[in-house]
């Protein structure tokens, strides 16, 4: 994330947004909580790749700007995978 000025509360919330997105729409297990802030993020990379493939993005496993932009788009509340 570009470090431009003090993080606003919303920005702090933002740090969890990708995690919540993958949990809700791509069945990321809740036990991988806060994994973005730890080294071992295998399951998240896998889920991120799954999401990128489903949404037609380049599959990098990384939360690049394109991916984040796609995740922020308005969408249907039904999950994309799982039930």
């Amino acid at each position, binding site marked *: 994330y570009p470090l431009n000025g003090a993080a606003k509360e919303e920005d702090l919330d933002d740090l969890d947004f990708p995690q919540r997105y993958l949990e809700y729409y791509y069945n990321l297990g809740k036990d991988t909580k806060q994994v973005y802030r730890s080294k071992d993020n295998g399951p998240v990379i896998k889920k991120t790749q799954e999401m990128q493939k489903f949404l037609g993005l380049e599959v990098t496993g990384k939360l690049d700007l394109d991916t984040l932009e796609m995740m922020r788009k308005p969408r249907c509340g*039904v999950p*994309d995978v799982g039930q």
Partner: protein
Amino acid sequence: FHDFLGTPKWRKNHLTYRIVNYTQDLPREAVDSAIEKALRVWEEVSTLTFSRMHEGEADIMISFAVREHGDFYPFDGPGKSLAHAYPPGPGFYGDVHFDDDEKWTEDTSGTNLFLVAAHELGHSLGLFHSDDPEALMYPLYSSFRDLTQFRLSQDDVDGIQSLYGPPPTSPDTPVVPTESSPLESKIPAACDPALSFDAVSTLRGEILFFKDRYLWRKLHWKPQPEFHLISTFWPSLPSDLDAAYEVISKDTVFIFKGNKFWALRGSEVQAGYPKSIHTLGLPPAIQKIDAAVSDKEKKKTYFFTGDKYWRFDEKRQSMEQGFPRLIADDFPGVDGKVDAVVQSFGFFYFFSGSTQLEFDPNARMVTHIFKSNSWLLC
């Protein structure tokens, strides 16, 4: 396309829906119309048909809500999740919930209700999200530049037809209830040279040909007419109608049988009907009419019975003085009993038995004679 785990689907072709509440963003009629249009998207490519309920439990209950709204899947304020829906099944299954923190609009200036409704109804019918970015069932919302160009993608069509099959294409195979009706009558054949009609009317650009319990539906973008039971669209309407006409400025089709008439708006029978035909100003001695047609340009409606006709002024909402008059006097060439009349491309088409007369009201003469079933690709 994908379906839900276990491929839940409706075990019947005719489904009911109910709009439980409304968003303040749009007039009620706009919400009604958006939902109707969204249902029609799926109706036109499958065997499914829909009719509306105003109370009680419908198959598909449609509502607007914000945040936590009782199904453990709270909405999240403006943006992000716009709506969600449940796969086919009893109770809350099949239902559609719209996030009323969105700005719902008829165009694409906000979140287009028709587009989101069509997507969510895909879920209600059993379709899961598709990874085809062109598909309506793709999970991310994207507003089309020109909504009039909206089309289902082939992926969507393949998906819904994998669950319910394509619409009936042959005029001889109507969508009929699975249990046979004790009053089973012969099914009329479109290309029977002796075919005549009970009533013919336009309806939002389509033309409906009523016969016994059935109707042919002529869509201008589809050469092959569809064949349905009248009750598929309007369960409360009788069969063997006398007359039908559309007043386009009111988006209403009026249906006549005996001394009663109904008003339809899309698939909805308007409250307060049937009414007596005498409320229109027809004399008490008239207990039924043969045919009727409303002239879109002149805002006049013609009622035909026997060899006479009356004329109703739609602007003044009253029958005109000086009627009845003889049909033959004002429509030279039109003689014999009129079964039905429809206006199309400025001509009146008079149906009498298996013969159809094209009448030019400006030239006041019959310009062509066709078979009555010429509209049905025979």
